[in-house]
């Protein structure tokens, strides 16, 4: 039993890193723009397909391919913000953004179906199936390199975004926009540009999440739906808008789920959401709620 518990905790921590890669962008976009980007799940899938095209058709290594997919996803994000989000104004802007991002998800899903068809694909590389042995015994336990690299990237990305937000001029503009868009505009900040760039960054980081997700799962255009509910739960638990909170919540949630999996996989999903409700009951703003995040 102890052995299973160790394995589940390791699986949860590293798997949490993978989810954090997908959730960080979502929470960043909410933090700055007050937009819950329902399209984040399908954007993860789009990023996975981009990695797939580079890997299969151009034989570019998945990690090297990020040099192409990250900027490409940034442009996708900026385009979505300019075309679909920027025109939304007024008191109903937040609820309208939900619908608009859902519309984006449906459009992207349709395009991906048309281009790639309904069949599933998976990304392959040596580090997906190879790993380092950490537990011995008759059936040794291995830590797959892809999880290690994914977790490392998640920590790195959170760090980079933190530095950008809190140690750069652009970050100050972003935080000013987070606190009060009107005041930010009055002191000369180009709020429209900040919004577009932030949305672009939020989508660009999904390039990394999509690559790791696509390495671990066969996916098709429909795969985004199973993801989005979990990603939303993670960023709510972490505190909407909190980058570090997303990482902490992802690790916490996936670890809880993995541990419950030992006894009953059918309860693991229930516990996943029960943990969310429990934490929110005690601390309604999540682990690192919006107010706290913006006060950092």
């Amino acid at each position, binding site marked *: 039993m102890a*052995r*299973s518990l160790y*394995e*589940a905790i390791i*699986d*949860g921590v590293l*798997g949490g890193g993978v989810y954090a890669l997908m959730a960080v962008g979502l929470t960043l976009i909410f933090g700055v723009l007050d937009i819950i980007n329902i399209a984040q799940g399908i954007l993860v899938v789009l990023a996975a397909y981009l990695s797939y095209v580079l890997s299969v058709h151009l034989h570019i290594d998945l990690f090297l391919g990020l040099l192409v997919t990250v900027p490409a996803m940034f442009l996708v994000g900026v385009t979505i913000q300019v075309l679909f989000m920027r*025109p*939304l*104004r*007024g008191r*109903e802007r937040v609820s*309208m953004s939900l*619908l*608009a991002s*859902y*519309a984006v998800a*449906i*459009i992207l*899903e*349709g395009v991906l*179906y048309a281009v790639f*068809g*309904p*069949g*599933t*694909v*998976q990304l*392959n590389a040596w580090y*997906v*199936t*190879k790993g380092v042995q950490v537990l011995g015994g*008759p*059936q*040794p*336990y*291995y830590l*797959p390199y892809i999880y290690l690299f994914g977790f490392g990237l998640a920590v790195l990305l959170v760090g980079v975004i933190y530095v950008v937000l809190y140690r750069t001029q652009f970050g100050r503009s972003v935080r000013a926009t987070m606190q009060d868009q009107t005041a930010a505009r009055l002191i000369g900040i180009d709020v429209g540009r900040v919004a577009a760039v932030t949305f672009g960054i939020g989508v660009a980081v999904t390039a990394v999440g999509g690559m790791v997700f696509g390495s*671990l*799962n*066969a*996916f*098709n*255009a*429909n*795969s985004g*739906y*199973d*993801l989005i509910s*979990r990603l939303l739960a993670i960023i709510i638990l972490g505190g909407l808008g909190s980058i570090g909170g997303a990482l902490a919540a992802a690790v916490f949630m*996936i670890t809880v*789920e*993995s541990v419950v*999996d*030992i006894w*009953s*996989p*059918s309860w*693991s*999903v229930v516990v996943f959401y029960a943990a969310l409700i429990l934490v929110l009951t005690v601390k309604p703003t999540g682990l690192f709620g919006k107010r706290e995040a913006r006060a950092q």
Partner: protein
Amino acid sequence: MRPHGTRFLTLTTVAASAAMVLASCGGGSSSSSSGGGGSKAPIMIGVSLSQTGDFSADGQAFTRGYNLWANYVNSHGGLLDGRKVKLIILNDNSDPTTVQANYTKLIASDHVNLVFGPFSTLLTVPSAKVAARYGYAFPEGAGGGPAVFQLGLRNVFAVSPPIADQLVPFAEWVAALPASERPKTAAYPMVNDPFADPMTQTAQGILQKAGVKTVYAHIFPAENPDYKAGADQVAATGAQLVIVGSVDVPTVTAFITAFEQQHYNPKIFAATAGPDQGAAFLKAVGPGNATGIFVPNGWYPGLANSLSQQFVQAYNAKYGGTPADVNADSAEAYSVGQTVAQAVAGTKSIDNKVLIAWLHSHPTTTVQGPARYSGIGMNVVAAKFIFQWQHGAKFAQVLPAGAPGSVPIVNPKPAWGQG
């Protein structure tokens, strides 16, 4: 002006989004093969299929099978003295609620003459109830789970083999292996699905009686995007045999990826669905990982049945590829059409009450072989086959061993990547 503009934009966004949601949920398309314009009204046949969602790959294969049948019928004079058939296909997004709404619309609003079944037991259960409420016959090709027959409906006709028994030839083969070759332990991870679980549990019962100890048997939620932790638990048991109760390629792939990561190679590996998806499965797992994997099904392109051979030829002529590319789902759909065509020819009617009575008292023949229906619509004479991926990315029929075209089993399964 600004408020006006914003309001307009808001309304536009809402309307556009709502339209797209509706389109994705219940968007329809109709297809027919005209083959010449007769003056008689076409026979309208309503179908709900999963063009999107979890069953989208299967749904599209079903669409091909139904369309191929409609083309064949229309190019051979139609049904009932020259009436063409016209398919009205709605998308159910693999969702049980939407599929129910679709059949209600097809019957009560579109007034189709006949309906054909959707893909999967999960979607057949709610659909069959709708059809029964309106007195429609419900021939279907992919709803063979016990949950369908437990409804006790007399309008259901499952043309494919009942799925609860589909792994029986496999389990009996394992049970009959010499003691030195027979696995000592087995693991049964299953997704929560009325197709996957009965089949897996029936096999588990046979294997337990044969002395194969169950070391893992858990049911996962159907909408689970992450099987890594569960698969690692299975690997930790070191079970010598694994049956994954799956409904799609991603589930099986997730287990294979995790097993490979853990250097865990069960001697025997089977899945209830996924490996039957041909090129889609190979593309996801790679030929080196596919070899040795078993999957049950009721049909294969090499089936020694003249109807089946004609179907395969027609399929390749219309959609291209080789016989190996023909998906069993398409054959199941085609069988539904054939069943109805025989009933219409036998009764010279498209009255659903008449068709139901005829199908309960007459055998039919389809590309899948003979069919005869019990009072609850189970095909009691259907053949059951077990397939295995073998070296060279070959999908071979291996059980029953005496069936035409059957080849020897690869046992044990090669290590991952070595197949």
